[in-house]
């Protein structure tokens, strides 16, 4: 069985193909579009998020029940995050930040279920989400502030002779944001899932090799249990970090002066 291959869980399989654009007709050439296991879990993430939020709050209780309270807490949590980082003006991006947060959070959490695919374990997904944030910041920043948006790269109160050094640093740090944002999420999820798989894989491979192997397998099992808890924490924290950084970047677009 492929049970102990730590990389196998990231394989993308076609559930049904849709189209191949370009290429010479051979395997792997051209742009191949298909409904994949990744797509399935993206759809599941959206469906679960939407149904949970809408159904839990559908009764519109004045005094919320537990289910409705969770939705309201999530709403207030993200709303306070946006308001705290980007100000009241940033609330126009509240649906975007909320969507990003729930997409990453639910995607990460779904990935914690055994045999489920983790959509955020692919760099292209996290990078696309980061680019969405990055382009939103740039476009909105220029629309709202015009050329003054470039003031973002010139920190106020810095002596003129330091500016030639500081400004390139600011530009580089700005341009590296989508990379750091995407690699942070991708790397945490990928590494966590590989580690989890490797340690729990030890249990499976140690049991057949005799008494000491079976007895010793308790150690990687305990490690696996501990890592599972840690990975749940990482799944939540990384979604939060992604959302908070999004808010801070949006704040730059709204208030470009430091």
């Amino acid at each position, binding site marked *: *069985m*492929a*049970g*102990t*291959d730590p*990389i196998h869980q*990231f*394989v*993308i*399989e*076609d559930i049904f193909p*849709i189209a191949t654009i370009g290429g010479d007709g051979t395997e*792997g050439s051209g742009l*191949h*579009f*298909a*409904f*994949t296991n*990744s*797509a399935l879990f*993206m*759809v599941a*993430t*959206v469906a679960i*998020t*939407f149904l949970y*939020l*809408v159904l839990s*709050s*559908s009764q*519109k*209780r*004045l005094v*919320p029940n537990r289910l*409705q309270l969770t*939705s*309201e807490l999530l*709403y*207030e949590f993200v709303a306070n995050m946006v308001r705290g980082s980007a100000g009241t003006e940033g609330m126009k991006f*509240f*649906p975007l930040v*909320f*969507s990003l947060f*729930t*997409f990453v959070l639910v995607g990460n959490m779904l990935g914690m279920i055994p045999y489920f695919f983790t*959509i955020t374990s*692919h*760099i*292209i997904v996290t990078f*696309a*989400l980061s680019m969405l944030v990055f382009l939103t910041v740039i476009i909105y920043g220029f629309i709202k502030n015009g050329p003054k948006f470039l003031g973002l790269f010139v920190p106020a109160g810095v002596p003129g002779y330091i500016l030639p050094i500081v400004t390139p640093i600011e530009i580089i740090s700005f341009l590296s944001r989508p990379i750091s944002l995407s690699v942070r999420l991708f790397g945490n999820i990928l590494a966590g899932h590989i580690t989890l798989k490797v340690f729990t*894989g*030890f249990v499976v*491979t140690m049991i*057949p*090799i005799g008494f*000491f*192997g079976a007895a*010793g397998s308790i*150690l990687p099992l305990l490690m696996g249990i501990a890592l599972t808890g840690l990975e749940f924490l990482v799944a939540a924290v990384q979604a939060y970090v992604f959302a908070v950084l999004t808010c801070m970047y949006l704040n730059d677009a709204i208030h470009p002066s430091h």
Partner: protein
Amino acid sequence: MASEATEAETPTEENLDAAVDATHGGSVGETHAATEDHGGTFPPFDPATFPSQLLWLAITFAALYLLMSRIALPQIGGVIADRRARVDADLKAADESRRKTDAAIAAYEEALASARAKAQGIANETRESIQADLASKRAAVEADLSEKLTAAEARIAETKAQALSHVDEIAAETAQAVASQLIGDVPQEQAQAAVSRVKE
């Protein structure tokens, strides 16, 4: 533990190879295509899967954004806003009620004070009116008495005057009677004239 781990190392690799062999040789279906896909490249870095992932990410994330911004968030936000409005309204109503209560208490106290003042006023008025009544009655009685006194005095004076006027008559009669006794008949007029002459 360390020795066990190193012991476990070799079988793991063997197992891994066996697993890869099994998927390669055995099942031909989708797993075959999948293992071939990631045969060389690490799946997250396999560009062949990028178009599908980007396509479905765009579709699903756009759907999520629309569903959140149009339906889910307005619904939850509406519930929260309704609750906040309700709480504010209730607090305002409570405040209003307290204000009304305070006003009612103030009005009551004012009414009480005015009633007390009025009662005192009425008492004073009554006392004054009684005193005035008493005074007027006394004045009337005094006036009556003084009138009666003057009337009585007038009557006395009249009686006295009358009595004095009768003195002449009596004197004339007496003089006539005396003269008649002494000198025979004397007319009344003569006697009177004589009396009045004496008086003068």
